């Protein structure tokens, strides 16, 4: 890792389907630029993209934050939105509260949070009804840049 201490922040607007994915794309490009292992980039990109889609599909607005440390990467997705009523249920593959529009776009199949969990090494979710949700995902990198 060449750039410990780097922090990047990206705004995400709820309902802005045209821009959905831009923040994750920028995160991916930034990681490629600083020479992160391709397998790690893939995991981060998938998790960040799912998190961004969740904000676009469910929340009013939010942001994605990438933090680069010596031995790990962290992606934080926080939003102002309805919150997740039952996190355990939302973590189950196939459970979704997404709209028909989300499904038309190929999302809303109940794989978002499970995908984020699968791709990250640790994930924590804090959510408050009618306030919003904060998801913190950590991705380990060993000395060789391989997880």
């Amino acid at each position: 890792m060449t750039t410990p201490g780097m922090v990047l922040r990206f705004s995400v607007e709820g309902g802005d389907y045209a821009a959905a994915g831009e923040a994750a794309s920028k995160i991916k490009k930034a990681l490629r630029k600083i020479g992160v292992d391709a397998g790690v980039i893939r995991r981060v990109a998938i998790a960040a993209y799912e998190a961004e889609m969740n904000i676009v599909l469910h929340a009013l607005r939010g942001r994605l934050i990438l933090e680069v440390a010596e031995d790990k990467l962290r992606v934080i997705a926080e939003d102002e939105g309805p919150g997740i009523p039952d996190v355990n249920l939302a973590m189950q593959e196939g459970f979704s509260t997404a709209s028909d529009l989300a499904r038309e776009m190929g999302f809303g199949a109940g794989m978002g949070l499970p995908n984020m969990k699968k791709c990250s090494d640790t994930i924590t979710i804090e959510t408050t009804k009618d306030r919003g949700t904060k998801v913190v995902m950590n991705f380990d990198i060993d000395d060789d840049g391989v997880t």
Partner: protein
Amino acid sequence: MNLRKIQQLLAAEILWGEEILDLVEPRYACGSDLMSDVLAFTKEKTLLLTGLTNAQVIRTAEMIDLSGIIFVRGKKPSQEVIAMAQERNLPLLMTKLPLYETCGILYSAGLEGCSGLPSRRR
């Protein structure tokens, strides 16, 4: 098997990427309209077959470095979506065949799926 061969097998229309069809060789293929499943279950160098034509398909391809996309059932994306693919150097093909037949033709020709189950003809 490169994309040129795949395009010929499916009699597919080339929406973008004529110049790079000979150079792109997908190792696996995946047929799905669920982008979260595509994100979860594909490997590198995968060709996506789908009936979805919106921008999120291109975004999904970008996130996991898909080799290319084949739109099935004669579905044609908008010029904006084709332009997005062009910016990302992502070849796009379109076939009139439905998803099942498209998958069957490519699987029979030896293109593996992402599960690790080998195709019968290799």
